[in-house]
Protein backbone atom coordinates (compact mmCIF):
# COMPACT_ATOMS: atom_id res chain seq x y z
CA UNK A 1 0.00 0.00 0.00
CA UNK A 2 2.73 2.37 0.96
CA UNK A 3 5.00 1.25 -1.86
CA UNK A 4 5.94 4.81 -2.67
CA UNK A 5 6.91 5.73 0.90
CA UNK A 6 8.89 2.52 1.24
CA UNK A 7 10.78 3.32 -1.96
CA UNK A 8 11.31 6.88 -0.82
CA UNK A 9 12.98 5.70 2.38
CA UNK A 10 15.16 3.20 0.48
CA UNK A 11 16.41 6.15 -1.56
CA UNK A 12 18.20 7.27 1.61
CA UNK A 13 21.74 6.15 0.95
CA UNK A 14 25.26 6.46 2.24
CA UNK A 15 26.38 8.41 -0.83
CA UNK A 16 25.09 11.95 -1.18
CA UNK A 17 25.27 11.67 -4.98
CA UNK A 18 22.71 8.85 -4.86
CA UNK A 19 20.50 10.70 -2.37
CA UNK A 20 20.24 13.56 -4.85
CA UNK A 21 19.73 11.54 -8.03
CA UNK A 22 17.21 9.20 -6.41
CA UNK A 23 15.26 12.05 -4.89
CA UNK A 24 15.06 13.74 -8.27
CA UNK A 25 13.86 10.46 -9.72
CA UNK A 26 11.16 10.14 -7.07
CA UNK A 27 9.95 13.67 -7.76
CA UNK A 28 10.08 13.44 -11.52
CA UNK A 29 9.51 9.89 -12.66
CA UNK A 30 8.27 7.61 -9.91
CA UNK A 31 4.61 8.47 -10.36
CA UNK A 32 4.78 7.55 -14.06
CA UNK A 33 6.15 4.03 -13.50
CA UNK A 34 4.03 0.99 -14.28
CA UNK A 35 4.14 -2.23 -12.22
CA UNK A 36 7.19 -3.52 -14.10
CA UNK A 37 8.96 -0.20 -13.72
CA UNK A 38 8.36 -0.17 -9.99
CA UNK A 39 9.86 -3.68 -9.74
CA UNK A 40 12.89 -2.56 -11.75
CA UNK A 41 13.39 0.44 -9.53
CA UNK A 42 13.18 -1.74 -6.41
CA UNK A 43 15.72 -4.15 -7.86
CA UNK A 44 18.05 -1.24 -8.51
CA UNK A 45 17.61 0.06 -4.96
CA UNK A 46 18.84 -3.29 -3.64
CA UNK A 47 22.29 -2.81 -5.17
CA UNK A 48 25.11 -1.60 -2.90
CA UNK A 49 25.69 2.15 -3.14
CA UNK A 50 28.94 2.11 -5.07
CA UNK A 51 27.63 -0.44 -7.61
CA UNK A 52 24.39 1.46 -8.16
CA UNK A 53 26.29 4.69 -8.63
CA UNK A 54 28.61 3.12 -11.21
CA UNK A 55 25.62 1.70 -13.08
CA UNK A 56 24.12 5.16 -13.24
CA UNK A 57 27.19 7.04 -14.42
CA UNK A 58 28.77 4.44 -16.68
CA UNK A 59 26.47 4.24 -19.62
CA UNK A 60 27.96 1.10 -21.12
CA UNK A 61 25.69 -1.48 -22.71
CA UNK A 62 26.37 -4.17 -20.17
CA UNK A 63 24.13 -7.20 -20.71
CA UNK A 64 23.33 -7.42 -17.02
CA UNK A 65 21.68 -4.03 -17.27
CA UNK A 66 19.24 -5.03 -20.01
CA UNK A 67 16.59 -6.25 -17.58
CA UNK A 68 16.72 -2.94 -15.73
CA UNK A 69 15.71 -0.76 -18.66
CA UNK A 70 13.98 1.66 -19.04
CA UNK A 71 14.29 2.68 -15.36
CA UNK A 72 18.08 2.67 -15.33
CA UNK A 73 18.03 4.84 -18.42
CA UNK A 74 15.77 7.34 -16.66
CA UNK A 75 18.17 7.44 -13.71
CA UNK A 76 21.08 8.01 -16.07
CA UNK A 77 19.31 10.92 -17.74
CA UNK A 78 18.75 12.87 -14.51
Amino acid sequence: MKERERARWRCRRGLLELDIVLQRFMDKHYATLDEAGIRQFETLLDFPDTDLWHMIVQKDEDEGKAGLQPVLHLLQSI
Partner: protein
Amino acid sequence: MRAALQLSEAGLKVAVLSKVFPTRSHTVAAQGGIAAALGNVTEDNWHWHMYDTVKGSDYLGDQDAIEFMCRQAGEVVYELEHYGMPFDRLENGKIYQRPFGGQSQNFGGAQATRSCAVADRTGHAMLHTLYQRNVRANTQFFVEWMALDLIRDEHGDVLGVSALDIETGEVMILQARATLFATGGGARIFSASTNAFINTGDGLAMAARAGVPLQDMEFWQFHPTGVYGAGILISEAVRGEGGYLLNKDGERFMERYAPHAKDLASRDVVSRAMTTEIKEGHGCGRDADHLLLKLDHLGADVIKARLPGIREIAIKFAHADPVREPIPVVPTAHYMMGGIPTNFHGQVVAPYKTGPEEVVQGFYAVGECACVSVHGANRLGTNSLLDILVFGRAAGNQIIEDLKRNSHHKHLPGDAADKALGRLARLDSQKDGENVSQVGDMLRKTMQTHCGVFRFADLLKQGVDKISEVAQRARNTEIRDKSRVFNTARVEALELDNLVEVAVATMVSAQARTESRGAHARDDFPHRDDDKWLKHTLYFSEDRRLDYKPVRLKPLTVESFPPKARTY
Protein backbone atom coordinates in the same frame (compact mmCIF):
# COMPACT_ATOMS: atom_id res chain seq x y z
CA MET B 1 29.71 -2.91 13.63
CA ARG B 2 33.29 -3.29 14.84
CA ALA B 3 32.11 -3.17 18.45
CA ALA B 4 29.17 -5.49 17.71
CA LEU B 5 31.55 -8.03 16.25
CA GLN B 6 33.67 -8.00 19.37
CA LEU B 7 30.58 -8.63 21.50
CA SER B 8 28.98 -11.29 19.31
CA GLU B 9 32.23 -13.19 19.05
CA ALA B 10 32.40 -13.15 22.85
CA GLY B 11 29.02 -14.88 22.87
CA LEU B 12 26.94 -11.89 23.97
CA LYS B 13 23.52 -11.11 22.55
CA VAL B 14 23.78 -8.07 20.30
CA ALA B 15 21.14 -6.02 18.53
CA VAL B 16 22.33 -3.48 15.94
CA LEU B 17 19.76 -0.86 14.97
CA SER B 18 20.16 1.15 11.80
CA LYS B 19 17.97 3.69 10.02
CA VAL B 20 19.13 2.25 6.71
CA PHE B 21 20.64 -1.05 5.62
CA PRO B 22 23.96 -1.14 7.55
CA THR B 23 26.19 -1.21 4.47
CA ARG B 24 24.46 1.98 3.28
CA SER B 25 25.85 3.90 6.22
CA HIS B 26 27.68 7.06 5.35
CA THR B 27 31.04 5.32 5.84
CA VAL B 28 30.46 4.00 2.31
CA ALA B 29 31.43 7.47 1.04
CA ALA B 30 34.98 7.25 2.39
CA GLN B 31 37.35 6.82 -0.52
CA GLY B 32 40.68 8.19 0.65
CA GLY B 33 41.64 5.44 3.03
CA ILE B 34 42.58 4.63 6.57
CA ALA B 35 45.72 5.90 8.28
CA ALA B 36 48.20 3.52 9.92
CA ALA B 37 51.96 3.91 10.24
CA LEU B 38 52.79 0.56 8.64
CA GLY B 39 55.85 1.98 6.89
CA ASN B 40 55.27 -0.12 3.78
CA VAL B 41 56.21 2.66 1.33
CA THR B 42 58.26 5.14 3.36
CA GLU B 43 59.70 4.72 6.83
CA ASP B 44 57.08 5.44 9.46
CA ASN B 45 56.15 4.83 13.09
CA TRP B 46 53.16 5.40 15.36
CA HIS B 47 54.91 8.14 17.31
CA TRP B 48 55.23 10.31 14.17
CA HIS B 49 51.57 9.63 13.42
CA MET B 50 50.76 10.71 16.95
CA TYR B 51 52.70 13.95 16.53
CA ASP B 52 50.87 14.77 13.28
CA THR B 53 47.50 14.09 14.89
CA VAL B 54 48.24 16.26 17.93
CA LYS B 55 49.49 19.08 15.74
CA GLY B 56 46.61 18.67 13.29
CA SER B 57 44.16 18.91 16.20
CA ASP B 58 45.67 22.33 16.98
CA TYR B 59 46.55 20.85 20.38
CA LEU B 60 42.93 20.37 21.42
CA GLY B 61 43.16 16.59 20.97
CA ASP B 62 43.55 14.44 24.10
CA GLN B 63 47.05 12.98 23.92
CA ASP B 64 46.24 9.79 25.83
CA ALA B 65 43.54 8.88 23.32
CA ILE B 66 45.73 9.89 20.37
CA GLU B 67 48.60 7.71 21.56
CA PHE B 68 46.16 4.84 22.09
CA MET B 69 44.76 5.21 18.56
CA CYS B 70 48.06 5.58 16.72
CA ARG B 71 49.64 2.65 18.56
CA GLN B 72 46.76 0.34 17.66
CA ALA B 73 46.44 1.46 14.04
CA GLY B 74 48.58 -1.29 12.55
CA GLU B 75 46.83 -3.97 14.53
CA VAL B 76 43.31 -2.98 13.49
CA VAL B 77 44.32 -2.71 9.84
CA TYR B 78 45.92 -6.18 9.86
CA GLU B 79 42.87 -7.47 11.64
CA LEU B 80 40.64 -6.13 8.84
CA GLU B 81 42.95 -7.71 6.31
CA HIS B 82 42.55 -10.99 8.14
CA TYR B 83 38.76 -10.54 8.04
CA GLY B 84 39.02 -10.40 4.26
CA MET B 85 39.27 -6.68 3.44
CA PRO B 86 40.84 -6.59 -0.06
CA PHE B 87 43.46 -3.86 0.48
CA ASP B 88 45.43 -2.66 -2.53
CA ARG B 89 48.89 -4.27 -2.62
CA LEU B 90 52.43 -3.31 -3.43
CA GLU B 91 54.46 -5.57 -5.72
CA ASN B 92 56.08 -7.18 -2.69
CA GLY B 93 52.62 -8.19 -1.47
CA LYS B 94 52.44 -5.72 1.40
CA ILE B 95 49.48 -3.33 1.82
CA TYR B 96 49.77 -0.35 -0.54
CA GLN B 97 49.81 3.11 1.09
CA ARG B 98 49.24 6.59 -0.29
CA PRO B 99 50.31 9.99 1.07
CA PHE B 100 47.73 12.37 2.54
CA GLY B 101 47.78 15.97 3.81
CA GLY B 102 49.16 16.47 7.31
CA GLN B 103 51.22 13.26 7.34
CA SER B 104 54.91 13.71 8.11
CA GLN B 105 58.03 11.74 8.95
CA ASN B 106 60.18 12.51 11.93
CA PHE B 107 57.88 14.98 13.71
CA GLY B 108 57.13 17.50 10.99
CA GLY B 109 59.71 16.48 8.37
CA ALA B 110 59.18 15.06 4.90
CA GLN B 111 55.77 13.83 3.67
CA ALA B 112 54.81 10.43 5.05
CA THR B 113 52.85 7.77 3.13
CA ARG B 114 50.36 6.41 5.60
CA SER B 115 46.89 5.76 4.18
CA CYS B 116 45.78 2.23 3.29
CA ALA B 117 43.02 1.95 0.72
CA VAL B 118 40.88 -0.35 -1.36
CA ALA B 119 40.96 1.62 -4.65
CA ASP B 120 38.31 4.34 -4.27
CA ARG B 121 36.03 2.02 -2.26
CA THR B 122 37.68 1.84 1.14
CA GLY B 123 34.55 2.63 3.16
CA HIS B 124 32.44 0.30 1.04
CA ALA B 125 34.89 -2.56 1.53
CA MET B 126 35.10 -1.92 5.26
CA LEU B 127 31.33 -1.94 5.74
CA HIS B 128 30.88 -5.11 3.73
CA THR B 129 33.73 -6.90 5.47
CA LEU B 130 32.38 -6.05 8.92
CA TYR B 131 28.76 -6.76 7.99
CA GLN B 132 29.58 -10.25 6.65
CA ARG B 133 31.63 -11.02 9.68
CA ASN B 134 28.82 -9.90 11.99
CA VAL B 135 26.27 -12.03 10.17
CA ARG B 136 28.54 -15.00 10.71
CA ALA B 137 28.85 -14.17 14.41
CA ASN B 138 25.05 -14.02 14.77
CA THR B 139 24.72 -10.32 15.43
CA GLN B 140 21.04 -9.46 15.11
CA PHE B 141 20.28 -6.53 12.82
CA PHE B 142 17.21 -4.32 13.15
CA VAL B 143 17.17 -2.66 9.76
CA GLU B 144 15.13 0.52 9.20
CA TRP B 145 14.74 1.08 12.90
CA MET B 146 15.25 4.57 14.22
CA ALA B 147 16.36 5.06 17.82
CA LEU B 148 14.35 7.93 19.30
CA ASP B 149 15.53 8.54 22.84
CA LEU B 150 17.90 7.29 25.47
CA ILE B 151 16.49 5.63 28.59
CA ARG B 152 18.16 6.60 31.88
CA ASP B 153 17.10 5.71 35.39
CA GLU B 154 17.11 7.92 38.48
CA HIS B 155 20.85 7.30 39.00
CA GLY B 156 21.59 8.46 35.48
CA ASP B 157 22.48 4.95 34.32
CA VAL B 158 21.60 4.16 30.71
CA LEU B 159 19.25 1.20 30.24
CA GLY B 160 18.59 1.21 26.50
CA VAL B 161 16.66 3.21 23.91
CA SER B 162 13.17 3.73 22.66
CA ALA B 163 13.02 3.11 18.92
CA LEU B 164 10.67 3.35 15.99
CA ASP B 165 10.26 0.47 13.56
CA ILE B 166 9.94 2.57 10.41
CA GLU B 167 8.13 -0.16 8.51
CA THR B 168 5.30 -0.67 11.01
CA GLY B 169 5.39 2.62 12.88
CA GLU B 170 5.54 0.80 16.24
CA VAL B 171 7.58 2.27 19.07
CA MET B 172 9.49 -0.30 21.10
CA ILE B 173 11.74 -0.25 24.11
CA LEU B 174 15.06 -1.98 23.65
CA GLN B 175 16.37 -2.71 27.09
CA ALA B 176 20.10 -3.37 27.26
CA ARG B 177 22.85 -3.77 29.80
CA ALA B 178 25.06 -1.74 27.48
CA THR B 179 24.02 0.84 24.88
CA LEU B 180 26.53 2.03 22.30
CA PHE B 181 25.95 4.89 19.86
CA ALA B 182 27.78 4.89 16.53
CA THR B 183 25.27 7.11 14.81
CA GLY B 184 27.70 9.13 12.70
CA GLY B 185 27.91 12.83 11.92
CA GLY B 186 25.44 15.67 11.60
CA ALA B 187 26.73 17.97 8.87
CA ARG B 188 23.19 18.19 7.43
CA ILE B 189 22.82 21.23 9.73
CA PHE B 190 24.55 23.24 6.97
CA SER B 191 23.10 24.07 3.53
CA ALA B 192 26.37 23.21 1.87
CA SER B 193 27.23 19.72 3.13
CA THR B 194 29.14 16.73 1.79
CA ASN B 195 27.14 14.43 4.08
CA ALA B 196 24.34 12.10 3.02
CA PHE B 197 20.77 12.92 4.07
CA ILE B 198 20.82 10.40 6.96
CA ASN B 199 23.51 12.36 8.81
CA THR B 200 21.21 14.25 11.12
CA GLY B 201 23.17 13.84 14.35
CA ASP B 202 20.54 11.64 16.02
CA GLY B 203 22.90 10.15 18.60
CA LEU B 204 24.05 13.56 19.81
CA ALA B 205 20.51 14.83 20.11
CA MET B 206 19.38 11.75 22.05
CA ALA B 207 22.30 12.17 24.43
CA ALA B 208 21.67 15.90 24.81
CA ARG B 209 17.97 15.42 25.53
CA ALA B 210 18.91 12.88 28.19
CA GLY B 211 21.17 15.36 29.97
CA VAL B 212 24.53 14.25 28.59
CA PRO B 213 26.67 17.23 27.49
CA LEU B 214 28.02 17.65 23.97
CA GLN B 215 31.72 18.40 23.62
CA ASP B 216 33.56 20.82 21.29
CA MET B 217 30.57 21.40 19.03
CA GLU B 218 32.04 24.60 17.56
CA PHE B 219 34.54 22.57 15.54
CA TRP B 220 33.34 21.53 12.07
CA GLN B 221 35.69 20.77 9.22
CA PHE B 222 34.83 22.42 5.91
CA HIS B 223 36.16 20.71 2.82
CA PRO B 224 37.36 23.30 0.28
CA THR B 225 35.87 21.65 -2.77
CA GLY B 226 32.26 20.60 -2.59
CA VAL B 227 30.30 20.96 -5.84
CA TYR B 228 28.49 24.30 -5.77
CA GLY B 229 24.78 23.81 -5.14
CA ALA B 230 24.97 20.04 -4.58
CA GLY B 231 27.66 19.54 -1.94
CA ILE B 232 29.23 16.38 -3.37
CA LEU B 233 32.87 16.19 -2.39
CA ILE B 234 35.55 16.64 -5.04
CA SER B 235 38.55 14.88 -3.57
CA GLU B 236 41.91 16.53 -2.89
CA ALA B 237 43.25 14.14 -5.51
CA VAL B 238 42.24 16.72 -8.16
CA ARG B 239 44.54 19.31 -6.66
CA GLY B 240 47.10 16.56 -6.04
CA GLU B 241 47.13 15.89 -9.78
CA GLY B 242 47.69 19.57 -10.52
CA GLY B 243 44.23 21.14 -10.55
CA TYR B 244 43.93 24.61 -9.01
CA LEU B 245 41.40 27.21 -7.89
CA LEU B 246 40.50 30.42 -9.72
CA ASN B 247 38.51 33.49 -8.71
CA LYS B 248 36.28 35.49 -11.04
CA ASP B 249 39.26 37.40 -12.47
CA GLY B 250 40.87 34.12 -13.45
CA GLU B 251 43.49 34.57 -10.76
CA ARG B 252 45.09 31.57 -9.05
CA PHE B 253 44.51 33.20 -5.67
CA MET B 254 45.97 30.46 -3.44
CA GLU B 255 49.42 31.68 -4.46
CA ARG B 256 48.73 34.76 -2.36
CA TYR B 257 47.47 32.91 0.73
CA ALA B 258 49.88 29.96 0.84
CA PRO B 259 52.89 30.70 -1.36
CA HIS B 260 54.47 27.27 -0.78
CA ALA B 261 51.69 24.72 -0.48
CA LYS B 262 49.32 26.82 -2.66
CA ASP B 263 46.18 24.83 -3.55
CA LEU B 264 47.42 21.88 -1.49
CA ALA B 265 47.58 23.75 1.81
CA SER B 266 45.54 22.17 4.60
CA ARG B 267 41.74 22.12 4.36
CA ASP B 268 41.06 24.91 6.84
CA VAL B 269 43.60 27.22 5.17
CA VAL B 270 42.16 26.74 1.67
CA SER B 271 38.56 27.03 2.89
CA ARG B 272 39.31 30.31 4.64
CA ALA B 273 41.09 31.72 1.60
CA MET B 274 38.13 30.84 -0.61
CA THR B 275 35.68 32.43 1.82
CA THR B 276 37.76 35.59 1.93
CA GLU B 277 37.80 35.77 -1.88
CA ILE B 278 34.01 35.45 -2.00
CA LYS B 279 33.56 37.98 0.77
CA GLU B 280 35.77 40.49 -1.05
CA GLY B 281 33.68 40.24 -4.18
CA HIS B 282 35.96 37.94 -6.20
CA GLY B 283 33.45 35.09 -6.30
CA CYS B 284 32.14 33.69 -9.58
CA GLY B 285 28.67 33.39 -11.05
CA ARG B 286 25.61 35.61 -10.93
CA ASP B 287 25.63 35.74 -7.14
CA ALA B 288 29.44 35.90 -6.90
CA ASP B 289 29.19 33.07 -4.38
CA HIS B 290 31.54 30.33 -5.55
CA LEU B 291 34.95 29.70 -7.12
CA LEU B 292 36.23 27.55 -9.94
CA LEU B 293 38.39 24.44 -9.88
CA LYS B 294 40.33 24.24 -13.10
CA LEU B 295 41.78 20.99 -14.39
CA ASP B 296 41.36 21.04 -18.17
CA HIS B 297 45.10 21.84 -18.49
CA LEU B 298 45.82 18.30 -17.25
CA GLY B 299 44.51 17.05 -20.57
CA ALA B 300 41.59 14.77 -21.41
CA ASP B 301 43.72 11.62 -21.16
CA VAL B 302 44.91 12.28 -17.60
CA ILE B 303 41.43 13.28 -16.46
CA LYS B 304 39.79 10.24 -17.99
CA ALA B 305 42.43 7.85 -16.72
CA ARG B 306 43.07 9.14 -13.22
CA LEU B 307 39.98 11.11 -12.23
CA PRO B 308 37.07 9.38 -13.94
CA GLY B 309 34.83 9.51 -10.86
CA ILE B 310 35.37 13.24 -10.45
CA ARG B 311 34.51 13.86 -14.08
CA GLU B 312 31.24 11.95 -13.74
CA ILE B 313 30.27 13.94 -10.66
CA ALA B 314 31.09 17.27 -12.30
CA ILE B 315 29.06 16.44 -15.39
CA LYS B 316 26.09 15.18 -13.41
CA PHE B 317 25.91 17.83 -10.69
CA ALA B 318 27.61 20.90 -12.13
CA HIS B 319 26.83 20.28 -15.82
CA ALA B 320 30.49 20.99 -16.46
CA ASP B 321 32.83 18.56 -18.21
CA PRO B 322 36.18 19.24 -16.54
CA VAL B 323 37.95 18.20 -19.73
CA ARG B 324 36.75 21.51 -21.17
CA GLU B 325 35.55 23.75 -18.34
CA PRO B 326 36.23 24.35 -14.64
CA ILE B 327 34.06 22.92 -11.84
CA PRO B 328 32.18 25.43 -9.64
CA VAL B 329 33.06 24.69 -6.00
CA VAL B 330 32.52 26.13 -2.55
CA PRO B 331 33.80 25.25 0.97
CA THR B 332 31.40 22.61 2.26
CA ALA B 333 30.69 21.25 5.75
CA HIS B 334 32.27 17.84 5.96
CA TYR B 335 33.14 16.46 9.38
CA MET B 336 32.08 17.06 12.97
CA MET B 337 35.01 17.03 15.39
CA GLY B 338 32.77 17.43 18.44
CA GLY B 339 30.31 14.94 19.88
CA ILE B 340 29.37 12.85 22.88
CA PRO B 341 32.30 13.00 25.32
CA THR B 342 34.03 9.67 25.90
CA ASN B 343 37.27 8.30 27.25
CA PHE B 344 39.49 6.07 25.11
CA HIS B 345 37.61 2.97 26.25
CA GLY B 346 34.52 4.30 24.49
CA GLN B 347 32.75 4.99 27.79
CA VAL B 348 30.68 8.16 27.83
CA VAL B 349 31.97 10.56 30.48
CA ALA B 350 30.26 13.61 31.91
CA PRO B 351 30.56 15.87 34.96
CA TYR B 352 27.25 14.73 36.34
CA LYS B 353 28.24 13.36 39.71
CA THR B 354 31.40 14.36 41.48
CA GLY B 355 34.27 14.56 38.99
CA PRO B 356 34.45 16.24 35.57
CA GLU B 357 34.77 12.92 33.74
CA GLU B 358 32.48 10.48 35.49
CA VAL B 359 31.55 7.37 33.54
CA VAL B 360 27.87 7.29 32.56
CA GLN B 361 27.10 3.66 33.43
CA GLY B 362 25.86 1.57 30.54
CA PHE B 363 26.52 4.18 27.85
CA TYR B 364 29.21 4.09 25.14
CA ALA B 365 29.83 6.12 21.99
CA VAL B 366 32.18 5.63 19.06
CA GLY B 367 32.94 7.26 15.73
CA GLU B 368 31.90 10.60 14.35
CA CYS B 369 29.16 11.00 16.98
CA ALA B 370 31.72 10.66 19.77
CA CYS B 371 34.40 13.07 20.94
CA VAL B 372 37.27 11.01 22.40
CA SER B 373 38.89 13.47 21.48
CA VAL B 374 41.44 12.40 18.88
CA HIS B 375 40.63 15.07 16.28
CA GLY B 376 40.57 18.08 18.61
CA ALA B 377 39.91 21.23 16.63
CA ASN B 378 40.73 19.75 13.23
CA ARG B 379 40.70 16.19 11.89
CA LEU B 380 43.38 14.86 9.56
CA GLY B 381 42.19 13.05 6.43
CA THR B 382 41.90 9.23 6.83
CA ASN B 383 42.10 9.42 10.63
CA SER B 384 38.37 8.92 11.12
CA LEU B 385 38.12 5.46 9.62
CA LEU B 386 40.96 4.63 11.99
CA ASP B 387 39.06 6.24 14.85
CA ILE B 388 35.93 4.13 14.26
CA LEU B 389 37.90 0.89 14.11
CA VAL B 390 40.18 1.43 17.09
CA PHE B 391 37.54 2.77 19.42
CA GLY B 392 34.87 0.39 18.13
CA ARG B 393 37.07 -2.48 19.20
CA ALA B 394 38.08 -0.80 22.46
CA ALA B 395 34.46 -0.10 23.38
CA GLY B 396 33.55 -3.71 22.60
CA ASN B 397 36.28 -4.92 24.95
CA GLN B 398 35.23 -2.48 27.64
CA ILE B 399 31.60 -3.60 27.42
CA ILE B 400 32.66 -7.23 27.81
CA GLU B 401 34.52 -6.26 31.01
CA ASP B 402 31.71 -4.11 32.35
CA LEU B 403 29.08 -6.77 31.76
CA LYS B 404 31.05 -9.24 33.84
CA ARG B 405 30.29 -6.96 36.76
CA ASN B 406 26.70 -6.10 35.78
CA SER B 407 25.19 -9.43 34.99
CA HIS B 408 21.54 -8.42 35.42
CA HIS B 409 19.27 -5.93 33.78
CA LYS B 410 18.49 -2.97 35.96
CA HIS B 411 14.93 -2.05 36.74
CA LEU B 412 13.31 -0.19 33.86
CA PRO B 413 11.54 2.96 35.03
CA GLY B 414 7.81 3.13 34.28
CA ASP B 415 8.22 6.26 32.18
CA ALA B 416 11.01 4.81 30.01
CA ALA B 417 9.31 5.53 26.69
CA ASP B 418 7.50 8.71 27.73
CA LYS B 419 9.93 11.15 26.17
CA ALA B 420 9.70 9.54 22.73
CA LEU B 421 5.97 8.88 22.94
CA GLY B 422 5.41 12.47 24.04
CA ARG B 423 7.20 13.80 20.99
CA LEU B 424 5.20 11.53 18.70
CA ALA B 425 1.91 12.44 20.38
CA ARG B 426 2.71 16.13 20.01
CA LEU B 427 3.43 15.61 16.33
CA ASP B 428 0.17 13.73 15.82
CA SER B 429 -2.02 16.30 17.51
CA GLN B 430 -0.34 19.45 16.17
CA LYS B 431 -2.71 21.84 14.41
CA ASP B 432 -1.80 24.86 12.25
CA GLY B 433 1.83 23.91 12.64
CA GLU B 434 5.05 24.52 10.78
CA ASN B 435 6.22 22.77 7.64
CA VAL B 436 9.14 20.41 8.34
CA SER B 437 11.13 21.11 5.20
CA GLN B 438 10.70 24.88 5.50
CA VAL B 439 11.95 24.90 9.08
CA GLY B 440 14.80 22.62 8.01
CA ASP B 441 15.78 25.03 5.25
CA MET B 442 15.74 27.92 7.65
CA LEU B 443 17.93 25.98 10.07
CA ARG B 444 20.49 25.14 7.39
CA LYS B 445 20.58 28.68 6.04
CA THR B 446 21.02 30.12 9.51
CA MET B 447 23.95 27.83 10.24
CA GLN B 448 25.55 28.50 6.87
CA THR B 449 25.28 32.27 7.17
CA HIS B 450 26.00 32.71 10.85
CA CYS B 451 28.36 29.88 11.73
CA GLY B 452 30.26 29.00 8.56
CA VAL B 453 33.94 28.89 7.69
CA PHE B 454 34.61 32.35 9.16
CA ARG B 455 32.82 33.49 12.27
CA PHE B 456 32.00 37.09 13.12
CA ALA B 457 30.94 38.41 16.53
CA ASP B 458 27.78 40.15 15.32
CA LEU B 459 26.72 37.29 13.04
CA LEU B 460 27.18 34.77 15.86
CA LYS B 461 25.15 36.90 18.24
CA GLN B 462 22.29 37.23 15.76
CA GLY B 463 22.78 33.57 14.94
CA VAL B 464 22.01 32.51 18.51
CA ASP B 465 18.70 34.43 18.34
CA LYS B 466 17.85 33.10 14.92
CA ILE B 467 18.59 29.50 15.75
CA SER B 468 16.48 29.86 18.89
CA GLU B 469 13.63 31.01 16.68
CA VAL B 470 14.16 27.97 14.45
CA ALA B 471 14.14 25.75 17.55
CA GLN B 472 10.89 27.36 18.64
CA ARG B 473 9.28 26.77 15.25
CA ALA B 474 10.52 23.19 15.22
CA ARG B 475 8.56 22.56 18.39
CA ASN B 476 5.37 23.14 16.38
CA THR B 477 5.99 21.09 13.27
CA GLU B 478 2.99 19.44 11.72
CA ILE B 479 2.76 16.49 9.36
CA ARG B 480 -0.23 15.71 7.20
CA ASP B 481 0.29 11.98 6.97
CA LYS B 482 -0.58 10.53 10.37
CA SER B 483 -0.50 6.89 9.32
CA ARG B 484 1.93 4.44 10.85
CA VAL B 485 3.34 2.28 8.10
CA PHE B 486 6.46 3.76 6.45
CA ASN B 487 5.60 7.27 7.46
CA THR B 488 8.69 9.02 6.17
CA ALA B 489 7.24 12.46 6.94
CA ARG B 490 7.20 11.50 10.61
CA VAL B 491 10.78 10.26 10.44
CA GLU B 492 11.87 13.53 8.87
CA ALA B 493 10.09 15.55 11.55
CA LEU B 494 11.91 13.53 14.23
CA GLU B 495 15.20 14.06 12.42
CA LEU B 496 14.55 17.80 12.40
CA ASP B 497 14.28 17.71 16.22
CA ASN B 498 17.75 16.17 16.19
CA LEU B 499 19.22 18.68 13.76
CA VAL B 500 17.95 21.45 16.02
CA GLU B 501 19.82 20.07 19.04
CA VAL B 502 23.05 19.83 17.06
CA ALA B 503 22.65 23.28 15.50
CA VAL B 504 21.91 25.10 18.76
CA ALA B 505 24.84 23.36 20.48
CA THR B 506 27.12 24.44 17.62
CA MET B 507 26.01 28.08 17.56
CA VAL B 508 26.13 28.56 21.34
CA SER B 509 29.55 26.89 21.68
CA ALA B 510 30.96 28.89 18.75
CA GLN B 511 29.77 32.21 20.07
CA ALA B 512 31.45 31.61 23.41
CA ARG B 513 34.90 30.58 22.14
CA THR B 514 36.74 33.86 21.61
CA GLU B 515 39.83 32.55 19.87
CA SER B 516 40.69 30.90 16.56
CA ARG B 517 41.80 27.28 16.73
CA GLY B 518 41.75 24.65 13.98
CA ALA B 519 38.42 24.76 12.21
CA HIS B 520 36.96 27.48 14.44
CA ALA B 521 38.05 30.77 12.86
CA ARG B 522 36.90 34.02 14.49
CA ASP B 523 37.31 37.25 12.61
CA ASP B 524 37.52 39.24 15.85
CA PHE B 525 39.95 36.84 17.58
CA PRO B 526 42.26 35.64 14.81
CA HIS B 527 44.79 33.86 17.05
CA ARG B 528 44.89 30.77 19.19
CA ASP B 529 44.81 31.62 22.88
CA ASP B 530 46.27 28.75 24.90
CA ASP B 531 46.17 30.64 28.19
CA LYS B 532 42.43 30.99 28.07
CA TRP B 533 41.17 28.40 25.65
CA LEU B 534 43.28 25.25 25.81
CA LYS B 535 40.16 23.47 27.07
CA HIS B 536 37.21 21.45 25.85
CA THR B 537 33.73 22.96 25.62
CA LEU B 538 30.82 21.11 27.21
CA TYR B 539 27.31 22.19 26.17
CA PHE B 540 24.24 21.20 28.23
CA SER B 541 21.00 21.25 26.30
CA GLU B 542 18.49 21.69 29.13
CA ASP B 543 19.59 25.22 30.02
CA ARG B 544 22.08 25.86 27.19
CA ARG B 545 24.78 26.12 29.80
CA LEU B 546 28.44 25.87 28.89
CA ASP B 547 31.13 24.31 30.99
CA TYR B 548 34.75 23.54 30.20
CA LYS B 549 37.21 20.79 31.03
CA PRO B 550 40.97 20.55 30.57
CA VAL B 551 42.60 18.96 27.54
CA ARG B 552 44.43 15.74 28.42
CA LEU B 553 47.95 16.77 27.54
CA LYS B 554 49.60 13.74 29.12
CA PRO B 555 49.97 10.73 26.80
CA LEU B 556 50.03 7.16 28.10
CA THR B 557 53.74 6.38 27.87
CA VAL B 558 55.59 9.05 25.88
CA GLU B 559 56.33 12.70 26.55
CA SER B 560 53.66 15.29 25.93
CA PHE B 561 53.74 17.39 22.76
CA PRO B 562 53.44 20.93 24.09
CA PRO B 563 51.42 23.45 22.02
CA LYS B 564 53.40 25.13 19.27
CA ALA B 565 52.41 27.41 16.41
CA ARG B 566 50.79 25.25 13.72
CA THR B 567 52.48 25.91 10.40
CA TYR B 568 52.70 23.73 7.32
